[in-house]
């Protein structure tokens, strides 16, 4: 009897072991999984369907993805703080955006300083706001950049070098070849080659990949790549910041709402720091009202061909 109990216990133990093993087998092969990643971003609750759609143009200074990353949060802010549903409208060139303003395809636009100055009279454009930089002043710089290990220490070292530039419709695409070379008694022929690229970031990539020796980009882009292999060789004189511009037929009510919303930003306050943390860095330090005259100095510079500071 005792022996039978022992054998039965053994068989039972083996059966339990096999049952566990079989269950484990089934469980191991049952790979049903559902993972929802955590996201700090909340689903937008703002009901935009009822609001009037207003298009906000942006010059094509960056790739569409980068533009949306830096400018869509600005649109979200406006959507929340105005009575309109703002949508970004990209273009394939700087001047296309200026034309959109003139044609009222967009009510307002982030224009480049250079394109604004060169087209404002042609298209009857009105600057309404200009962004502040980190120091609180409404200027930016163009930056001559090279790689960290480059032998170029000053603008005089770029002789015989390959130069990469952004759009010819951007200030940074014109500053060096048209003005700064002359100021330093150099000319375009002293360079091995000069090539324009659609976006500022493309200029940086060309330098990092070794296709070009130096390049010019906005200081905001150059700063982005410091400690990532890029070094600033020289900065331009301060240039009035890229303005927010209205077209000749833009709705004054919309312009007012936009102006009020942007001017209410106090970058020193934590509340606004939280709001602007995902904005394009060029727009995240607040705004000032802009006037036609603010850009006259640049107009004079352009007209003088670089001889006037």
């Amino acid at each position, binding site marked *: 009897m005792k022996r039978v109990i022992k054998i039965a216990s053994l068989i039972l133990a083996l059966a339990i072991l096999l049952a566990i093993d079989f269950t484990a087998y089934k469980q*191991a*092969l049952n790979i049903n*999984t559902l993972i929802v990643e955590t*996201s700090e971003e909340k689903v937008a609750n703002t009901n935009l369907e009822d609001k009037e759609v207003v298009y906000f143009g942006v010059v094509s200074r960056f790739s569409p993805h980068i533009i*949306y990353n830096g400018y869509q949060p600005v649109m979200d802010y406006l959507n929340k703080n105005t009575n309109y549903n703002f949508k970004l409208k*990209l273009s394939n060139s700087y001047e296309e955006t200026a034309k959109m303003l003139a044609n009222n395809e967009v009510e307002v636009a982030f224009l480049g300083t250079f394109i604004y100055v060169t087209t404002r009279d042609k298209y009857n454009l009105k600057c309404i706001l200009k962004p502040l930089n980190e120091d609180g002043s409404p200027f930016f710089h163009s930056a001559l950049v090279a790689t960290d290990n480059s032998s170029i220490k000053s603008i005089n070292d770029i002789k015989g070098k390959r130069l990469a530039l952004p759009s010819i419709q951007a200030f940074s695409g014109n500053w060096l070849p048209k003005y700064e070379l002359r100021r330093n008694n150099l000319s375009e022929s002293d360079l091995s080659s000069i090539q324009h690229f659609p976006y500022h970031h493309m200029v940086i990539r060309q330098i990092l990949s070794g296709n070009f020796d130096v390049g010019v980009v906005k200081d905001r882009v150059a700063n982005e790549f410091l400690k990532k292999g890029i070094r600033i060789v020289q900065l331009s004189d301060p240039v009035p910041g890229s303005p927010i511009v209205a077209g000749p037929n833009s709705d004054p009510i919309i312009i007012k709402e936009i102006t009020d919303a942007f001017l209410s930003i106090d970058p020193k306050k934590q509340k606004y720091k939280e709001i602007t943390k995902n904005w394009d860095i060029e727009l995240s330090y607040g705004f000032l009202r802009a006037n036609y005259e603010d850009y006259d100095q640049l107009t004079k510079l352009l007209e003088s061909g670089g001889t006037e500071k």
Partner: protein
Amino acid sequence: MTHIRFFPYSLKAKIMLSIGSLIAILMFGISLYITFHWQKLILHNQLHNTQSITRAFSIPILDAMIYLENDNENYEPQLIAQINDFAEKVENISYIMITNDQDKVIAHNDITQYNHVISDTITAIQKNTTAMVSRIYKHTELDWIMEVSQPLKIAGKSWGNLRIAIDAKPIRKEIFMLFIWMHIFTIIVISISLSIIYYMIGRMTNSLNELVKNIDKIDVDTEEFQDKEVGNDEIGYLTHHFKSLEKRLSQSHQQLLNAQSQVFRAEKLASIGRLASGVAHEINNPLNGIRNCIYSIKQEPDNKELHDEYFDLINEGVNHMENVVKKLLGFSRHSQPNITSVNLNNTIETVLHLLAYQMDKKGIDIQKNLNPNLPEIPADNSLIQEIIMNLLLNSYDALGNNGLIKITTDITQDDVLICVEDNGTGIPKELQQDIFDPFYTTKDPGEGTGLGLSVSLGIVEAHGGKMELFSNPGDNTKFTVTLPIKGSHENTTDRR
């Protein structure tokens, strides 16, 4: 003699079973833990890879979607080309699809899927989160797939979702192979562990077997001890103590033999005491005769013829007394063990002669049926006398006046038999099992030591024989002693 137990009941088997079970359960648990841990890692890695692919692929898709939105229809063929190219180049892709914010398919690597509105678990979840959603499940048509949904959105702007599904069957196969390999690994580890344990236990049990062999060889009579080398382990320690035990056992055995010898002696003296009246009677009769002869010789000092006749009578009386004393001495002598050829019939006659007076006095009839062809057996005659004396005295005590004692000898193939039977009151059934116990007696105090039958049984067994009791309560009692013809005297010498 060493008895090796059947394997399933051996110590080795028990240890193997218990430790083996423990190791098996432990290894089983560990292998399952590793399997599931590994399964999680495999799934995590595969999901991570698919998520990375999806995330990376979503960037050019997002750019294309932005261009499309900005009225640049040239990007639509580029978007479709990107999807098809990706589906061709990346292994195990089940499908790639892009849906708009209304969950309508706007691009798919399978052209038939365009414009379908997707409604499933992921679309439901995606309505409440802006994060990436991944899942592995069994698709009704595609079997097991891994599906990752990446919202195409930037800040508050959404263009829909990119969903990439990868065939998950290879993952399941990898997990299946992992399961199999873990089992093989477990079996190998268990086998190696059990082999090592088997070897170690074998060494241990060999030491025990050696110890058992030594125990079998113990001879407490010789005081010669096994003096083999012992190890330094627990078995060596046990062996060392066993040797000590062996010595103590031998000493105890010697003390027991001494005590037994004293018991024998006491029992014999008790028997002699009981013979005293008979012996006195045997001696008194010839003494009276001698005294009468001496008196008659004194009365007729010159009658030479009478003197010769009386001297013969005196001589006969002295011889008779000498004979009685010699038998008594022969019975009572505390001699050294002496194995000789013994004729049991003669021994019986001698003992009957010593008891003749008592038997006559009580009117007990002795019926002898002694087989004249009884062979001589090797035995200690003095001890055999003691057995017969004890049996006859027991019958004597059990009988009243005019009782009957039958004494028989006989022969079988290998043994000789002595039967002593009386027609007394018999022995109650409940007492029969205790009758051979030392100091057990039914007699009144002072009439018996209770050692007679116990001592007799000891002597019989020492001669390699056996002693049996057959009794019908109220009727008769019969003791049968069986002794081997060839003898068995290994231990007989120590019974005195």
